[in-house]
């Protein structure tokens, strides 16, 4: 095992409440794992506990099978990339990257060799003499990565590594992190609040909310089989419909889908529907309502074009809002316009029995 977290607890400074609440997980050697969740969900605190930058109030941390809970950050042999990059401002790029080797008393020639190798790897070979304030955000990020990798850590931890970068650079760096990971096979954990980032980069995703682990799984498992209502809502679903089970079907206002197994009549349910799981049958004035499928009518409130996709904001006839995404060709084919009535149908929905424990 690369990393094991066992029942980690961290209380807030004030003493009330837990920032991290009984968090446990195992990460295999060489895995690339995302800690995903909303800000304030405790994921950064977990990362800092793994690094040794914070100590847990309860629980243990094991790195490479060794209990390091009481080992100082300096001796954990980890690489950490800060959200702010935290480059040493008074040092050049080369000095930054070489710092970890220099304080270990490595020879000048070895430092030079490793630094040159890493700068080539992060494609900054030309900029070794620059100072951090002379670099762009993406370049700083890569320097921070090279610096973290220089001492040869067994575990790489990244806190919101791409958060402060613009969209294009972010995509590039994601791709690049993926490739770096394939080349070096170093156990890597990164924190993000961006579900797309987590699902597209990581081998496995740990979803956290309010200090607790909601689900651990591959991106497919997280996306296709969300374990909790929170995960369903956080990962890819914009639409949330309320309803109850009636005659083996989950009635969601004017729509209905299969009831969750074991839910009797009268059970309240919450349904999460992804925008592409809504089928727009057509404009009411132009298609016949087929009695064989359960369809509802809705009004088109707004059409928002985002690149080659169109986001369609609907209001169902029972006043629940519903967002649908279609390609612009499909919208043209259906002849959709704002203010029109359409038939809609649900292809799929993630259902959760309402929790009344509150």
């Amino acid at each position, binding site marked *: 095992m690369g990393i094991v977290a066992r029942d980690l607890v961290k209380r807030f400074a004030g003493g009330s409440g837990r920032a991290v609440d009984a968090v446990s997980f195992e990460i295999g050697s060489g895995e690339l794992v995302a800690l995903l969740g909303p800000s304030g969900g405790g994921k950064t605190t977990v990362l800092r506990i793994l690094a040794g*930058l914070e100590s847990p109030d309860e629980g243990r941390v094991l790195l490479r099978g060794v209990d390091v809970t009481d080992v100082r*950050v*300096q001796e954990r042999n980890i690489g*950490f990339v800060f959200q*702010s990059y*935290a480059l*040493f*401002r008074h040092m050049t790029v080369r000095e930054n990257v070489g710092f970890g080797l220099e304080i270990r008393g490595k020879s000048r020639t070895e430092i030079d060799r490793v630094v040159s190798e890493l700068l080539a790897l992060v494609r900054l070979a030309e900029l070794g003499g620059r100072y*951090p304030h002379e670099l762009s955000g993406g370049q700083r990020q890569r320097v921070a990565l090279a610096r*973290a990798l220089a001492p040869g850590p067994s575990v790489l931890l990244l806190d919101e590594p791409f958060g402060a970068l613009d969209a294009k650079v972010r995509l590039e760096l994601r791709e690049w992190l993926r490739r770096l990971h394939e080349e070096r096979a170093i156990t890597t954990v990164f924190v993000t609040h961006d579900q797309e980032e987590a699902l597209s980069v990581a081998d496995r995703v740990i979803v956290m909310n309010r200090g607790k682990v909601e689900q651990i799984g591959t991106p497919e498992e997280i996306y296709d089989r969300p374990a909790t209502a929170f995960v369903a809502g956080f990962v890819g679903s914009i639409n949330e419909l309320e309803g109850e089970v009636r005659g083996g079907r989950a009635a969601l206002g004017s729509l209905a889908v299969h009831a969750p197994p074991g839910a009797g009549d009268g059970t309240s349910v919450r349904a999460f529907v992804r925008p592409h799981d809504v089928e727009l049958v057509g404009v009411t004035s132009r298609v016949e309502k087929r009695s064989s499928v359960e369809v509802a009518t809705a009004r088109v409130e707004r059409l928002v074009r985002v690149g080659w996709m169109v986001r369609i904001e609907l209001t169902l006839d029972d006043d629940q809002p519903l967002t649908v995404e279609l390609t612009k060709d499909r919208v043209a084919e259906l002849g959709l316009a704002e203010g029109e009535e359409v038939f809609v149908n649900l292809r799929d929905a993630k259902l959760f029995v309402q929790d009344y424990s509150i």
Partner: protein
Amino acid sequence: MAERAGGGQGRVRVVLIGAAVLYVGTLVLLPAFSLLRGALGGGLRPFVEVLARPDVLAALGMTAKLTAFAVVVNGTLGTALAFVLVRDRFVGKRVLHALVDVPFALSPVAVGVVLLSLFGKGGLLRPITDALGWEVAFAWPAMAMATAFVTLPFVVREVGPVLEEMGTDQELAAYTLGASPFVTFFRVTLPGIRWGLAYGTTLTMARAIGEFGAVLLVSGGIAGKTETATVFVYRALEDRDDRGAYVVATVLALASIGLLLLLDLMRRKRGARAEPGG
């Protein structure tokens, strides 16, 4: 219309610029000229002769010694204080914050009086210093204390904001790279605050060199022994030793100008690095 308005504005500007130049000229240049005339009026030779006098050398030496003391003490303790005020949270922190500024507000003469009440004849701490055989009042220890006191806020107030702005991420990054707290302080923290520290230290020097009131009270003004440069100027004028007063005053003025240029240089250096780099 617009042209006339513009012309009117132009005239106002010329008058304002003229007034500013005249004001600063009268206030700074005229005295400077007069000072130089007094010091160098007889040529360079008398100037050097005065500088070579033992009492003048002793006074300048004393000022240099007190300034060095203030720089070392407030450079280290001031930095430590800034750390405590920026990084730590404790009861009474705001009081400590306010206390650091007291030397700014308090008249140096009052500082002298306080020191005399502690170490002077019948002073509160006098039995202790006497028992230890220490000569404090009317000797350099009291003068050093007075100088250190009046210069206390400079390093704290210059280093504090730099520390605040720097945060702790760079230090934590050094830890994750394997650096001990000791190595981190000297390799990361100290270089990070160096311009703030240099700026605060330079202000400390300027203030220490110019200190007069507090030092005058506690020095006893023994010529050639406990006299600083400023106290020397004061006594020289009393003794109608005008040339001596002018020469030492000129040296003090030159030191100030040198420090001023240094400050300006540092401000520019620091400004170039002001943008966030990490």
